[in-house]
């Protein structure tokens, strides 16, 4: 499929670049519908990659790139299931989203996340699968999972640890604070900071530059420098599932879903 229009995302190939556009209100929360369409995308990547040299992942939502997992769906689905079945459902979701993230991470194309606004939790984790992150200056990155009694579950910690120093990883993970694009660039997370509304344009310009290089050489470089941390990713799923059985998680999710706080996105 050269192009696709779904309920949560769409993709097309243009000038040798695949553009994956997230577009689900309010801020591209990743739930079961998004997961199914992401799986379609990674299945289509097999053939798409033959006619492209780069992949750009971006968002059509003004609020940001992606606010992370759909916590409302996670909570409501969990409530419908008997306790014994909840963990199996969560594990199944994690296994599937990890397959998607690993497929994007390792695809033999140069991949660029063009981000803006809220890039939180699972959205941050999706950006981390990409080779380059190009961020609008209004972007904020955050791992707020600890406030729910959880750790990031879509591969965030191993990928952040792959890319950055352990001190930065601990700061983001253990405080749950958000950082802006300038700070993210200063620690080495973001390759370029753009003006407001300019991230996609700069990503396209970067993709055009990438096209000049021999693809086999570029992919040899990528394989050499960007190994997928499979062992740690497996461990992450296990830790997430262990934590998910704790009563504090159900309480944290319930509080988030029912929150009328002025700042539900802040830790």
């Amino acid at each position: 499929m050269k192009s696709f229009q779904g309920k949560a995302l769409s993709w097309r190939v243009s000038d040798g670049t695949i553009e994956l556009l997230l577009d689900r209100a309010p801020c591209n929360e990743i739930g079961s519908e998004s997961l199914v369409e992401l799986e379609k995308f990674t299945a289509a990547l097999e053939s798409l990659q033959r006619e492209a040299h780069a992949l750009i992942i971006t968002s059509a939502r003004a609020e940001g790139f992606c606010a992370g997992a759909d916590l409302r769906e996670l909570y409501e689905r969990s409530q419908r299931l008997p306790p014994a079945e909840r963990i199996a459902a969560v594990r199944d979701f994690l296994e599937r989203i990890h397959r998607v993230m690993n497929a994007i991470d390792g695809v033999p194309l140069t991949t660029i996340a063009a981000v803006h606004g809220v890039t939180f939790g699972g959205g941050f984790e999706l950006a981390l699968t990409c080779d380059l992150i190009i961020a609008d200056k209004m972007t904020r990155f955050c791992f707020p999972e600890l406030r729910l009694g959880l750790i990031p579950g879509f591969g965030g910690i191993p990928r952040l640890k792959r890319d950055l120093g352990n001190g930065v990883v601990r700061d983001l993970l253990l405080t749950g604070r958000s950082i802006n694009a300038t700070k993210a660039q200063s620690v080495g997370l973001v390759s370029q900071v753009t003006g407001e509304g300019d991230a996609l344009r700069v990503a396209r310009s970067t993709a055009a530059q990438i096209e000049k290089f021999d693809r086999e050489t570029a992919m040899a470089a990528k394989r050499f420098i960007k190994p997928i941390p499979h062992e740690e990713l497996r461990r992450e799923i296990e830790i997430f599932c262990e934590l998910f059985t704790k009563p504090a998680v159900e309480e944290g999710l319930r509080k988030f879903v029912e929150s009328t706080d002025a700042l539900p996105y802040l830790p």
Partner: protein
Amino acid sequence: MTTLEKTTEDILQLASAHFKVPREQLNPTDDFFKKLGINSLQALDLLTRIEQHFHIELPDYELQGVSDFRTLAERIQSRL
């Protein structure tokens, strides 16, 4: 040296310009959520603009419980 009054005024100007509320309608003791009519995502947007304007990092947990411009200015002032 930037005074608390100058910092407060800068925030009021920033908020006025970005959220299209006339400056003269904003006061230091106003609840900015109510006065600007902003939600949590827009508050993050304001935080980013403040960090850029003052060239500081302001961890968002320092804003927990802060809802008026004057207290916000005090948090910023402590980082200048």
